């Protein structure tokens, strides 16, 4: 025998774990320590059935938790205190004696804890926690209803199996219905009660500032920043444009307002449409694929240098569509003051100035100067590195002539500075280069460590050309290009695809998608109506009915032995022929046959009884004879013996 309360206890503890586990990283130290301790102590106390926390002390502690964290709830941080309260209340409840009401409170708190985790994290792992939570809470509630009737109720293993089997119907069907309700539940564009929502918080991330030499080393973080739904594109074209830095002060590049009157047109190129799913907030600049034509889906301001900036806060639930021209050219179509793109700081070293001066003197047009500069970079045998970087007041000089190593910011800012010194207007473009294509999901995964800076130079004919000086490093192939080649193994790629589909199917599902879904289903239904002829529909229904009926028939036959089927048929025929007032379920076959006074029935009972009492199966001859007798019973059905009522 297994006590129901023991199983209920298991469900309680697992559902508490499932509720608090997603919250755990966001809890403060007291809750982090107390919750696991209470979980363990509660389980031990339940097992020993004594020394639980008394109700008055539990109440006082609960009030203290409310007092401690309740006052910290504010509009700017409403969630963190609440999750701490939930975890601590759960801890207190776990230490008290478990009664029907307490069990229910624990389940409710565990569900609320899981619910509150959605305000802190939108990871796909939530679905796993949710599924398991639904299983344990629903089965636990079923067990609770048994415990509420009799706390000491115990069931044999067989009964328990039947109970758990039936109880599992609840989570199984609930989870299927969950998917249906998720699609159809009403959604709004605007919150019902806005002040309840937490204020958006600023996050560290992409900066519109390039300052080589400010740090001695950089650490690449493999954190996903964007997923971009796209066809596969040549790796050399994978320049993801974020921001253009046109203002140079000292050795720091920042973004200034593009010169007044600058107008540019995108010419040529292969059009491509991409959908961007930002993974974290990007400070207002929206990533596009170089060179973008337009952007839709998010209200954003487009600058002449093809930078898109939005005022709205972007988070993981947003997405936007970009039309780009691969291999296109950006050409200025107006006269404007190019001084901004030629400004250089006064602190440039003599060696750097000398290089630029030589180029200015010897080379003619801008394109030739660019070629000369590329040759100069190659000749310097610069290497791409992220450690032991130049970190002086004049990082460009140190990079080109001393250390000769640096990462993209050094290459790009040195190249752009030399171009400007040589009289070629130039600017930096910040964004990402490369990315991993996930063929399973049909998207590019762009991670933080692929952040990149390159140069755009303005030729005399008004064309902006893209130059990636990092490619001029002696180890460019190894450090830059293959570094950004696919590195995820198959398992991680599948995991990432799951995350991607999670974001697409769940996180980004909104009113627009809901309407789109209903419209699509509506039009599909319409098409179905027009295409499907009545005859085909009938044939389909008949076939489906026959298959289902056949399956039921086979299942029914399979479940009953041939003996049981024969007896069942016999009893049906007897009922039809003799119409006895009521056959008591315990009546024996021979007793019944004796009462009916029918030789066929008596013979049937005798043959059947012979096998039954010897505990053996019916032989083939016996079955044949029994079937004959049944046939006779059936054919003689109308010959009902004359009774007193006839």
């Amino acid at each position: 025998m297994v006590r129901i309360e023991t199983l209920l206890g298991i469900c309680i503890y697992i559902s508490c774990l499932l509720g608090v586990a997603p919250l755990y990283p966001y809890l403060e130290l007291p809750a982090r320590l107390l919750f696991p301790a209470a979980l363990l102590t509660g389980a031990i106390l339940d097992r020993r059935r004594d020394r639980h926390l008394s109700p008055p002390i539990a109440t006082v502690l609960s009030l203290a938790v409310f007092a401690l964290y309740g006052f910290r709830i504010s509009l700017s941080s409403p969630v963190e205190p609440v999750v701490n309260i939930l975890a601590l209340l759960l801890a207190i409840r776990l230490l008290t004696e478990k009664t029907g009401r307490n069990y229910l409170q624990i389940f409710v708190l565990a569900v609320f804890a899981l619910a509150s985790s959605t305000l802190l994290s939108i990871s796909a792992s939530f679905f796993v926690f949710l599924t398991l939570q639904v299983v344990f809470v629903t089965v636990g509630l079923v067990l609770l209803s048994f415990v509420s009737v009799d706390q000491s109720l115990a069931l044999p293993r067989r009964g328990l199996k039947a109970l758990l089997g039936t109880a599992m119907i609840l989570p199984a069907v609930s989870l299927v219905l969950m998917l249906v309700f998720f699609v159809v539940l009403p959604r709004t564009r605007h919150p019902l009660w806005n002040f309840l929502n937490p204020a958006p918080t600023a996050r560290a991330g992409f900066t519109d500032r390039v300052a080589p030499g400010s740090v001695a080393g950089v650490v690449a973080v493999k954190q996903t920043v964007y997923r971009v739904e796209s066809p596969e594109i040549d790796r050399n074209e994978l320049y993801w444009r974020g921001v253009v830095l046109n203002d140079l002060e000292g050795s720091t590049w920042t973004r200034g307002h593009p010169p007044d009157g600058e107008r540019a047109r995108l010419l040529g190129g292969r059009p491509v449409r991409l959908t961007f799913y930002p993974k974290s907030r990007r400070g207002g600049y929206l990533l596009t694929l170089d060179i973008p034509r337009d952007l839709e889906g998010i209200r954003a301001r487009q600058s002449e240098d093809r930078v898109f900036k939005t005022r709205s806060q972007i988070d993981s639930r947003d997405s936007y569509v970009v039309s780009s021209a691969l291999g296109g050219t950006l050409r200025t179509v107006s006269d404007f003051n190019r001084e901004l793109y030629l400004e250089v700081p006064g602190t440039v070293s003599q060696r750097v100035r000398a290089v630029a001066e030589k180029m200015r003197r010897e080379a003619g047009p801008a394109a030739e100067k660019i070629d000369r500069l590329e040759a100069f970079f190659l000749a310097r045998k610069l290497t791409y590195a992220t450690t032991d970087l130049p970190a002086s007041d004049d990082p460009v000089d140190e990079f080109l002539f001393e250390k000769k190593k640096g990462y993209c910011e050094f290459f790009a800012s040195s190249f752009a500075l030399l171009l400007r010194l040589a009289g070629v207007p130039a600017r930096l473009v910040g964004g990402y280069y490369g990315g991993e294509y996930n063929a399973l999901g049909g998207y590019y995964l762009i991670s933080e460590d692929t952040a990149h800076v390159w140069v755009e130079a303005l030729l005399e004919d008004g064309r902006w050309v893209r130059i990636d000086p990092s490619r001029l490093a002696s180890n460019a192939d190894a450090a830059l290009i293959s570094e950004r080649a696919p590195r995820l193994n198959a398992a991680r790629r599948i995991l990432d695809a799951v995350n991607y589909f999670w974001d697409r199917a769940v996180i980004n599902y909104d009113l627009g998608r809901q309407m789109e879904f209903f419209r699509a289903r509506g039009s599909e239904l319409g098409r179905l109506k027009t295409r499907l002829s009545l005859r085909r529909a009938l044939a389909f229904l008949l076939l489906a009915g026959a298959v289902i009926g056949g399956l039921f028939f086979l299942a029914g036959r399979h479940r009953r032995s041939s003996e049981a089927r024969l007896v069942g048929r016999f009893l049906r025929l007897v009922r039809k022929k003799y119409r006895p007032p009521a056959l008591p379920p315990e009546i024996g076959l021979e007793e019944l046959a004796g009462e009916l006074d029918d030789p066929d029935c008596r013979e049937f009972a005798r043959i059947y009884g012979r096998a039954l009492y010897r505990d053996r199966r019916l032989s083939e001859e016996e079955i044949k004879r029994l079937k004959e007798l049944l046939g006779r019973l059936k054919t003689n059905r109308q010959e009902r013996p004359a009774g007193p009522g006839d």
Partner: protein
Amino acid sequence: MTLLLGFGAVNTGNNLLYLLVSALLGFMAVSGVLGKGNIDKLHLRVEFPDEVFDGIETLVRLRLENRKRWLPTFLVTVTLLDQSVTVPIIGPRQAALESLPFTLDGRGRHGIDAARLCSIFPINFFVRCRSLPLGAKVVVFPAPRPGYGDSRPEPEGEGGGRPSPLKGYEGELSRISDYRGGEPLKLIHWKLSARHDRLKVKELSATTREPVIIDPERLPGKDLEERLRHAAFVATRCFRQGRPVGLRLGRAVIAPAAGRQHKIKLLNALGLYGQD
């Protein structure tokens, strides 16, 4: 809770909350269907004991059958005559047997039209109930009450006591049989009852005595009911002593005989006397 989380989901547009609310709504829907199905396709049969006396508590046997093909039935509470019993589990196509103490007041025919089945399964938030028609009928016998002169102890061996094949209440254990409702509780063989899942009683041997014919009209008592109760007392005492008993009711006479069937026939006649 669902409403609160639902409001939170709509307000924040948080799809994870939507998922949670959807799961809760799904759970509510399926628990409603499961709860309804739990008390569907149940068949109840009530088996009264052979002897039911006016105002005396006895046990009625309930046979609750689950006629569902696949699903078991859980936590069904059967309420009958203000008494209730809860059956934790009945497997598909199986039956549960339960006993319920009950008392019927007033001799004669009694009927129980319906029983009430309630269940809190699957979750203890709602109780679902349904009424199950029964149409059970039983004849209640007059409660045996001693009258004037019955307190005199019966002399041992009066009328020539001799061993009898009939069962009695004072002799040696002769056999074990099923409880029929009229046996004193002290005769219930609890150990065997627990083993067989139905009540078993010890039957003791008896000795035979001279036959007697009871005429309620001639028994002392202030009214017919009292005389009938007195007659029931005398009859049951005589049967217990193994004495053949007959009955005169007006002009109808039931010849003296011994045995269980005869006893019930007599008590039945006393129960229905003057009511048909």
